[in-house]
C-alpha cells in the first residue's frame, strides 16, 4: 500500500520541477551552448544573426588570447580584485572578532551592522556615477575633504592617474562588500558550538588565541564560500568599472566584462570575439573555483585530524 502511494505521486515530482527545467534549458543552457558555438564562427556586425563556421575554428580564441587589450583587461580584473579582497577579508574578520567576542560587548552592534551592509544593497551603477562625482577634478568632495584635512595641498586628479583610478575602483568594491562578508562570517561564528568557546575560556585562552586557534579554523567552509563567491563576482565585475570611467584612463580600469561588452556592442560588433572571450572567462572561473576548492580541501584534510584530536582532548579536560 505504502509503496504504491509513493509510486503514484512520483509524477508530481517531475511535474512540479518541469517549469524550472524548461526555463533552465531555454534561458540558461541554450544561450550557454549558443555562446560557445558563436565563438567558433564569423558572426559580427550590428543586427546580424546568420553565421558560418570558420575554417580555423579556434581563430577567435587565438585572437583573444594574443590580444594585448584582453591581457590588460584580465590583468586589471585580477589586480583590482586582489586589492579589494585582501582588505575586505581582513576587516571583515576583524569586525567579526570584535562583534562576536564576549569580552568586548560593543554597544550599537546592530547599528554598525546595518550601516556597514548598506552600500551593498544600493545600485552599483548609481554608486559608480556617485563616486565619479565624488572624485572629480578640480572641485570635488574628495578633494575638498583631503585639502581640509591637510593631506594634499592642491586638488588631485584621481581620474587621470592610472594607479589611483584602479585604487578607487578597488575601494568601491571593498566598500560595497566588506559589510556583506562580515555578516556572513558573523553568522558562521554564531553557528559554531558554544561549548568549544567555553572550553577555551576555561583553559585560559586569550582573545587572540581563541580567534586564531578556534574561530578561524571553524570558519573554513564559510571562508571558502566567501572566497568563491567573491572570486566569481570579481571576475565578472562590470557595473563599477564601466560607469566609473568606462575602462579608462588608458584602459587602466578595463575589466574583462567591460572588454566583452565593448567587443560585442560597440565598434564593429564582434559577437564572435566577445563570445570567445566569454568562454575563456567561463573556463577561467571554473578552473579557479575548483582550484580554490581543492587547495582548501587538501589543507583541511591535513589539519582536520590534528584538530579533532586536539578538540577531543580539550573536551575531555572540560568533562574532568
Amino acid at each position, binding site marked *: 500500500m505504502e509503496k504504491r502511494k509513493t509510486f503514484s505521486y512520483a509524477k508530481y*515530482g517531475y*511535474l512540479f*520541477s518541469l517549469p*524550472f527545467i524548461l*526555463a533552465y534549458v531555454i534561458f540558461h543552457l541554450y544561450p550557454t551552448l549558443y555562446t560557445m*558555438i558563436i565563438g567558433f564562427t564569423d558572426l559580427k556586425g550590428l543586427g546580424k544573426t546568420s553565421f558560418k563556421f570558420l575554417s580555423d575554428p579556434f581563430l577567435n580564441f587565438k585572437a583573444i588570447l594574443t590580444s594585448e587589450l584582453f591581457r590588460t583587461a584580465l590583468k586589471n580584473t585580477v589586480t583590482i580584485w586582489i586589492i579589494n579582497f585582501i582588505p575586505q577579508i581582513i576587516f571583515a574578520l576583524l569586525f567579526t572578532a570584535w562583534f562576536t*567576542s564576549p569580552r*568586548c560587548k560593543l554597544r550599537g552592534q546592530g547599528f554598525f551592522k546595518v550601516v556597514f551592509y548598506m552600500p551593498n544593497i544600493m*545600485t552599483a551603477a548609481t554608486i559608480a556615477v556617485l563616486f565619479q562625482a565624488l572624485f572629480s577634478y578640480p572641485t570635488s568632495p574628495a578633494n575638498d575633504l583631503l585639502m581640509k584635512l591637510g593631506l594634499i595641498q592642491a586638488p588631485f586628479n584621481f581620474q587621470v592617474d592610472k594607479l589611483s583610478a584602479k585604487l578607487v575602483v578597488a575601494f568601491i568594491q571593498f566598500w560595497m562588500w566588506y559589510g556583506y562578508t562580515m555578516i556572513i562570517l558573523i553568522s558562521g561564528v554564531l553557528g559554531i558550538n558554544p561549548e568549544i568557546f567555553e572550553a577555551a575560556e576555561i583553559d585560559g585562552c586569550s582573545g587572540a588565541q581563541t580567534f586564531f586557534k578556534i574561530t578561524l579554523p571553524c570558519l573554513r567552509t564559510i571562508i571558502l564560500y566567501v572566497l568563491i563567491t567573491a572570486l566569481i563576482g570579481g571576475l565578472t565585475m562590470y557595473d563599477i568599472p564601466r560607469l566609473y570611467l568606462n575602462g579608462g584612463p588608458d584602459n587602466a580600469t578595463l575589466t574583462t566584462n567591460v572588454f566583452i561588452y565593448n567587443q560585442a556592442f560597440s565598434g564593429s560588433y564582434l559577437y564572435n570575439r566577445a563570445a570567445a572571450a566569454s568562454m575563456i572567462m567561463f573556463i577561467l572561473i571554473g578552473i579557479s573555483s575548483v582550484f580554490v576548492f581543492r587547495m582548501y580541501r587538501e589543507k583541511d584534510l591535513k589539519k582536520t585530524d590534528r584538530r579533532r584530536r586536539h578538540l577531543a582532548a580539550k573536551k575531555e579536560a572540560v568533562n574532568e
Partner: protein
Amino acid sequence: MSDSIRRVKRVSRPFIVLMYVVCIFFAILSLLPFVIMVINSTRSTYQVQQHALSFLPSKYLLSNLKILTSKDTFHPIRGFVNSLIISSGTTICAVYFSTLTAYALVAYQWKLRNAFFSLVLAVMMIPTQVTSIGFYQMMYRVHMTNNFLPLILPAIASPSMVFFMRQYMIPSLPLEIVESARVDGCHEFRTFNQIVIPMVKPAMATQGIFCFVASWNQLFLPQILLTKKKLYTMPIMVSLLKGDIYKTEYGAVYLGLALTVLPLFIVYFLLSKYIIAGVALGGVKG
C-alpha cells in the same frame, strides 16, 4: 572571586576606545557618500563648484529637479515604473517557481530526484553574465529585444533559490500535513498553493527581498536588451547622467542619483533587520 576573574578577562579600556573609533570611522565611511549625495542634491551647481563638501542643505532641490527633467533624457518616474515591472515580475517568477521546484525535491520520491538536485548544485555557481552574448543573439532572433519578458522569465530557473528553499523546507515543512490534505482529497497542486506556501512564507519573503534588489540593480542584461528610451530601467537612467547633457549640472546629477536609490533606501530602512538576518542565513546555508 569569580567577579575579579571576569574583570581581568575583559578587554582593556584603551582597546575598547580604539574599537569604537574604528567602528565609527567605518560607519562614517559607509554613510558619507550618501550624505554628500543627498545634501548636494539640494544645492545649486554654483554652490557645489565653490564647496563640493558641505553638510548644510540648501534650497535648490526644486530647481535641480527642473533642470534634471527638462532635458528629456532622464525620466525618474518612467525608469521607476519600468524597473518596478521587471523586478516584481522577476521576483514573483523566481520565488514561486523556486518554491515549487524545492517542494518537488522535498515532498516527492522520484527516480531522478537526486540527479536533479546535483544538477541544481552544479549550475548554481555559473555566472549568467558570461553567457550573455548567446542570450542576446537568441533574443534578437526571436525579436524579443526591447521586451521585458527576456529579463523576467529566466528567473523561473533560479538554482540558488531552489537550493535555499529546499534547505529551509527539509526541517520546517511537516509532510504529515501534506499527507492529511491528501487524505481529505485535496489536489496536489492545490495543496501546494494553499497549504505549503503559507507555511514557507517567511523564507519566500527573505528570498524575495534579495531577488527584488538584485533585479532592481541589474545593469548588464537590460543595457544589452533594451535600446528604446521608453523602456530604460533605473540603472540605465543612471548611466545617462554621465552624458554630456548634465556635464555642468552637478546639483541635478546628485539629485538624479539620489532619486535612483531612494526606493532602496526606504526598503532598507524598513526591512534592514530582515535583510541582515537573510544575509546571515544565506551564508550559513551556503
